[in-house]
């Protein structure tokens, strides 16, 4: 088999089994929801996001991507809670009828800490895992090849559609379509672009389906895999421990322990 297939990534985190990273992201998300306060999500972010990102040497990219991902929701969470928190008593400042409260600020910061942990975990997974590697790993574990195909084809279709949109935009602009200027002008330009992009994609589906059928895609049963990501007994143990952490934390919260979890 050629050496370029399944090339291990540049760092230990990249080389982890995709399922391990997926479990880490999912468990971090669940724990971020379960723990309260500021300390819990901060510790979680440091351990499950920042440290692995440093090890993978992608901290800068991770922070930029996570920030872009969460900025709109973060701003709205901050403003809504700061200015309109219903149980707010301690007024920080007032602008006309709108009062910013300390309770609202605290709740907003706690929510942002959770959102930060979740977006960081998802971004870490995204930046260190090739979609094909995850899908092949899932297929090796018994997931239907059709499900795997749909997941991967959906991911891979996005760049193809962007490329098609760029080509159609250039063609339409060459024919005089105005796609720049005011927002209204840009909106008017969307229809003649979206139509060909969507219709072209739909028209391709039939021939693509036939090509897949002709290549045995509808054959029942498992496919032969050319390669799959490596896995280790240690990673298997870690995955189970991570999964176990979720019910343990739920139990701890139910028992009111520990206090620093908020």
């Amino acid at each position, binding site marked *: 088999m050629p050496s*370029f297939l399944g090339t291990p990534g540049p760092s230990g985190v990249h080389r982890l089994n995709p399922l391990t990273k997926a479990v880490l992201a999912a468990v971090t998300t669940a724990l971020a929801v379960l723990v309260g306060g500021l300390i819990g999500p901060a510790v979680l972010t440091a351990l499950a996001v920042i440290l692995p990102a440093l090890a993978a040497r992608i901290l800068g990219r991770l922070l930029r991507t996570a920030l872009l991902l969460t900025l709109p929701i973060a701003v709205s969470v901050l403003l809504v809670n700061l200015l309109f928190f219903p149980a707010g008593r301690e007024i920080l400042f007032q602008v006309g009828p709108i009062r910013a409260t300390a309770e609202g600020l605290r709740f907003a910061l706690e929510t942002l800490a959770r959102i930060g942990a979740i977006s960081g975990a998802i971004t870490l997974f995204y930046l260190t895992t090739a979609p094909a590697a995850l899908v092949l790993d899932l297929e090796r574990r018994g997931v239907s090849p059709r499900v795997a195909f749909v997941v991967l084809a959906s991911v891979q279709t996005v760049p193809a559609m962007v490329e098609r949109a760029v080509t159609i935009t250039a063609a339409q602009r060459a024919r005089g379509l105005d796609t720049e200027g005011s927002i209204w002008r840009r909106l008017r330009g969307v229809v003649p672009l979206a139509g060909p992009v969507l219709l072209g994609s739909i028209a*391709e589906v039939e021939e693509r389906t036939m090509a897949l059928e*002709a290549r045995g895609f509808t054959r029942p049963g498992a496919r*032969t895999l050319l390669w799959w990501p490596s896995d280790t007994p240690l990673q298997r143990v870690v995955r189970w421990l991570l999964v176990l952490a979720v019910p343990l934390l739920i139990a701890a919260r139910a028992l009111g322990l520990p206090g620093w979890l908020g």
Partner: protein
Amino acid sequence: MLTLERVTYRYAGASHPSLREVSVELRAGEVLGLVGASEAGKTTLCLVASGLAPRAAGGTLSGRVLLDGEDTAPLAMHELAGRIGIAFASPATQLSGVATTVYEEVAFGPMNLGVPRPELIARTDEALAALRIEPLADRDPAQLSGGQQQLVAIAGLLALRPAHLVLDEPTAHLDPAGTEMVATALAGLAADGASILVAEQKTDLLAGICSRIVALDAGRAVLDGLAAEILADPRLVDLGVAPPAAVRLRRAAADAGLPPAALARLEGALAG
């Protein structure tokens, strides 16, 4: 042997059949060319021969399609995949859309058929070598040119090692070098015993690789015979098919009153 017996096919919702009472026989090791104007029924014949119509394309079929004497009607598409392969004109739609390297793209078909891994690798290597595209093996198929994608699609077909190949304008997006590569690969496959049906507008290509030609007109097979005879048949032009350059040259020379000896020298020079 691939046999179409009195095949009539109508697409779903169509008012008239796209193929009418077509009978074609393709023997082992034979390369059969299919010519005709646009909408003559070439693509439809390819779909029917490969089993995709009516299985995937819908519509109604009468007559019989036989694969090595076996009626294909009761067979599912995946049962035909390893026995008969088809390549289309448009390269982008033939790619799986999930492979991140050309190597995986070429291996996609045999992977689906559950071919054991060592054989899968051997088949993939062999298919890449047949079309001399090994240097592309680690490239992303989506980033290749149309011509390169077409070669990858044909390599994917070869990796299935079907005994029968159906190619619908396989060189439509290829440059002369790519066309030559496909022609050489097809000739090699035919020499190994594969039967190949090629629908093509490039009659020069057909003249080089085909032993027989069938011409379609409005869904009917109107000419069927030895490639040299059919490609030189004056009726071909009336069917909307441009004869090969050699035939046109011969006609132009005859019209200009050029002596046969001079024409032979001219043809020799062009061929050389």
